[in-house]
């Protein structure tokens, strides 16, 4: 279970597309650096389960959804710009 102040993140990818792989790599690197011990990442492969796209209204892939802490936030793209991701997720750089 995630703690109240923890980050609950969902990353939607499509198999091993270059952007999907880049997004997974960028996100895990960033979380390890700035959210150590305070995050969970759920990677959802829409190639295998396309119906799951409906849950978070996913149109483009890759897309990152911040479920917790609220409010929900959405970042589209391969997460290669770390600074913007930190701002988007409202994370104070450590």
């Amino acid at each position, binding site marked *: 279970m995630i703690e109240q102040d923890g980050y609950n993140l969902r990353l939607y990818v499509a*198999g091993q597309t270059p952007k999907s792989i880049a997004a997974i790599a960028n996100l895990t690197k960033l979380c390890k650096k700035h959210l150590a011990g305070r995050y969970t990442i759920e990677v959802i492969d*829409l190639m295998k389960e*396309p119906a799951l796209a409906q849950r978070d*209204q996913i*149109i483009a892939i890759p897309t990152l959804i911040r479920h917790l802490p609220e409010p*929900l936030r*959405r970042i589209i*793209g391969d997460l290669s710009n770390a600074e913007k991701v930190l701002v*988007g997720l409202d994370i104070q750089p450590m």
Partner: protein
Amino acid sequence: MRTVRPDRKSTTASPSDAEETIEAIHGGNVDALMVKSPGGLRVVMLEGADQPYRMLVERMSDGALTLGPDNAILYANWRLSELTGRSSADLVDKRFDSLFADPAPRVADGGTGEGILLGAAGAIPVAVWSSSIAMGGLSVRLVTITDLSVQRRAEEIAIAERFARSILEQAAAAILVLSSDGRITHASGMAEKIATAPPVGRMFSDVFPLNVQSTAHAGILSRFTRESLDTALATKPFHGVEVKLHNRSMSKRFFLLSAGPLLNDAKEPIGSMVTLTDITARKRAEDQQTMLVAELNHRVKNILAIVQSVAGQTVRASSSLGSFSTAFSGRVKALALAHDVLTRTRWIGIGLNELLTAVLEPHQGAGGARVTLQGPAVLLPAQAVMPLSMAMHELATNASKYGALSVPQGTVTIDWILRDDGAPRVDVTWIERGGPKVESPGASGFGTKLIERVVGYDLDGKANLSFRPGGLRAVLSFPLKVDAAAPETSWSTLQPM
């Protein structure tokens, strides 16, 4: 990263989400989109997104191809080109079945099958996997083709290896494979049994120390030191060199050592195969045969000496050529009969009853009632057979000429008892009845002398002959256990007197 939209509680995409999405697509930040189709949501790749898959498929070790709805090839990977010896361009638009020898494999959706691919260098056994997928509104089939020949070859090699190993395990001879430096790389079950330590990995001479002094081929082996023998066995052929092992549990056994080179595909020696065959039983049989021949020689010489002696003495005791002839041939027959008995029983001995039956058979008469035998079972040692036969022959001959067997109503009874005064003895009593009245108290012919001397010297016993008026009564008493060290039949009594 293109867009961040904070502070939204709903997950519903808004118009600005759409803008951001378009912006992200234009910026090349996404490579797939979700689109609605009659079958539900599906992923549509943007250009370049499937590049990693293409790379993987191109480089994979299995053949891969895509088939259109009419079973024509739309795409074939590099490996399939390699397997078939046909370029990718040559394969495209060809029928799937044309890749295979008849019948082409029929594979259910998502299933596998096997077939024979028409390969660049001949037929290749392959496994085929197939699955259907919808692409751009078309239903296509994805197929992989796996070369099974390597796997089959590996299986065949494994079977051949198991077979070879089972031969090694079951072989009665000790079989070893030596590397070129004399180190053992393989050993049969028998080799492991006779080695002084587990042989694999050790030098031959360490686990099979040879006792080179003790065999017929000592000269061949003494040329080698232990180390040079290892090298010699690994590189030179040896054929049937007799050896003994310097190993306490094997010291009484003889082995035949052979070695032959093992060659690789280029016919270069890579070591040798060494066999140690246990020939102990064969050696024993050979020794026994040599001993038997020597024994036979000895016996033949003995018999000839006996015949010579009997002839000489019969001549002296005979008054005419006719009487010599009769007496001599009777005595030689008795010797021959005794010899037959000994041969038949392999010089082990015979029952007293059987011997007497055989010796006295010519005197038995038509009804079989003239000679009666009675007594317990007694096994006569081989050494007693010939002397006793001779003595009985003399008694029977005498009875036929002068005693009970010379008249139709006369009978002979032979009975015997066993006595044991520390050593087993037998007393054989010969009683004649119903013969002509015995007038002379005793004829001192050669027959009587022979009986007394044969029993006295050759049977180490005593003969007591009493010529009573009613008939002859003879008691032959002798021990059953003849000294094995004594000369078997010295026949001293038969030496010319």
